[in-house]
């Protein structure tokens, strides 16, 4: 198993917000995490990545059987885990400069086509539209060539054509062998993604349901999340 999460419990300011989460994913698989607003989807991805202020209270995160639970985010990134933020923060660094630094860091000269060229001279995420932010963030993920990609709502705030572009990147990542954990709110993007292996429903910080993607998706589309709330 590439990534295995066992009984992961996470708190923020001592308040438990994720309860005993269990997930496992293998190379080339795509798993989708569904859930209503505030259910803990973003928290889960950020906790896996060790992004403050979330604190892992108990449980384990294993990457290739190596315990990486308490590694810092940059150490996890260097081990092959990459995260795409739902809303990346505006930073006063030219997009092209960060790209160059990431190319140096990950020792490749890959220039992600999905990042619009007109954004290269601009400070990254400063005044970007929703679509521009998502495309840029996914471009950076591609450059990292991750073993595990944690994608936090890459479809929110993106128009239909943009969603197709985002889905293409997800398919490409999977073809490269990355394991993908995709958080999505309403799942429209899944229409354009081939072969989704598994889906989970996260409600109030707990995984309340899991199964094959189509079963879970149809249930959500027809019944919403109320049944689990």
């Amino acid at each position, binding site marked *: 198993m590439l990534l295995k999460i066992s009984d992961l419990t996470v708190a923020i300011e001592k308040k438990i917000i994720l309860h005993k989460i269990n997930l496992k994913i293998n190379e080339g698989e795509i798993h989708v995490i569904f859930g209503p607003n505030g259910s803990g989807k973003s928290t889960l991805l950020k906790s896996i990545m060790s*992004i*403050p202020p979330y604190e892992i209270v108990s449980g384990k995160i294993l990457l290739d059987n190596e315990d990486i639970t308490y590694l810092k985010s940059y150490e996890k990134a260097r081990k092959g885990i990459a995260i795409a*933020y739902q809303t990346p*923060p505006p*930073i006063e*660094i*030219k997009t092209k*400069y960060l790209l160059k630094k990431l190319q140096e860091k990950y020792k490749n000269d890959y220039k992600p086509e999905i990042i619009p060229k007109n954004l290269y001279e601009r400070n990254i995420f400063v005044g970007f539209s929703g679509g521009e932010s998502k495309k840029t963030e996914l471009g950076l993920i591609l450059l990292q060539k991750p073993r595990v990609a944690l994608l936090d709502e890459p479809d929110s705030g993106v128009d239909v054509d943009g969603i197709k572009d985002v889905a293409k990147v997800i398919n490409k990542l999977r073809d490269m062998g990355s394991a993908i954990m995709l958080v999505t709110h309403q799942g429209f993007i899944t229409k354009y993604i081939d072969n989704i292996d598994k889906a989970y429903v996260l409600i109030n910080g707990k995984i309340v349901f899991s199964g094959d993607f189509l079963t879970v998706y149809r249930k959500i589309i027809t019944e919403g999340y109320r049944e689990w709330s």
Partner: protein
Amino acid sequence: MELGEKMSEKEKKLSQLGVDLSGTKFAGSYIQKNDYIVQLMVKQLLRKNNVILMDLAEAIEKFSWVKSYLWKVLSPEKDKYIREVSEEKVHGTLLYVPPRIRISMPIQSCFFISDPDIVQKVHNVIILDKNSEITLNTTCAAVAGEATHLGITEIYLKEGAKLNYVMIHGWSPETFVRPRTGAFVEKNGILNMFYANLKPVRDIQSYPYIILEEKASANTTSILLGIKNSHINIGSKIVLRDKESKGEILSRAIAQDNSKITMPAEIESYTSNTKGHIDCKGLQLSEKSYIESLPILKSYTMGSELTHEATIGKLSEEGLNYLMSKGFDEDEATSLLVRGFIDVGLGNLPIIVRPQIEVALNIIARLAKG
């Protein structure tokens, strides 16, 4: 060129600051160690265009007209450091560019202190005649213990002349530094000044004073890095004396350790249809650091447009966390954010000097630690 027997380590330090000891990258080179000249190189490009680059003390004896430019824009009455230099015969550069001569290859000057207890006194006079243009790269450094540098620079830009003036400082933690710069820019003249401080310094205070005639413009950019116990007080004053003159003062200060940085900036307008802008930003990287921003705008008549913005803050934690999630450790992420903070745009400077400035900015980003 002979810089002295013990220079190899020191040469290395100078090279790191961008000094080209071979002089190949420059149309001319003047290097002064302590109080004597160790290199004066005037290439054919300058000679054939009658550009004069020589020791000021020698120039005063050789050309009677030089005296008419001395102490005109900086009066010895102004402060004790100017007076101290004015009372002695000191070395420094005379740079004169004849009318309509535009040289794109930069000229280098370098003033460094190689031994402790030295008081280095320098007087430079830069004269650009009508519609001429030149780029001057000046590096000042100390590679010794306690020492003092008093550097006077008088700049005279005649009608339509343009000077790009890049200054890189790399002092030692024990150096006391008092540069004094004055500039008079005639009608349609352009003065672009870029300054960066890369190393710790005991105490530096500088406040270039620039007077602009009709349609003249001046741009000063200062990138100040405060490390250890450095006391840095650097800014500039631009006087918009005549109509349609424009001035911009831009400063970025990064204070870490116990450093103290003051950024004074003043634009004064005496006529209508002038424009002035001050943009000062400070970034504190330690609890014990101190930053002070002092923007002053004065208008003595109606119709000038003067603005300023000033901020002091710390590194964005959100930005730091984001960059760390991309694989940069805390120091690397800090450097990236600092590099972004000092990325002020070099569009007003010629392409040929930008790589050296980029190197200086990268050094600052690398040295900046939270």
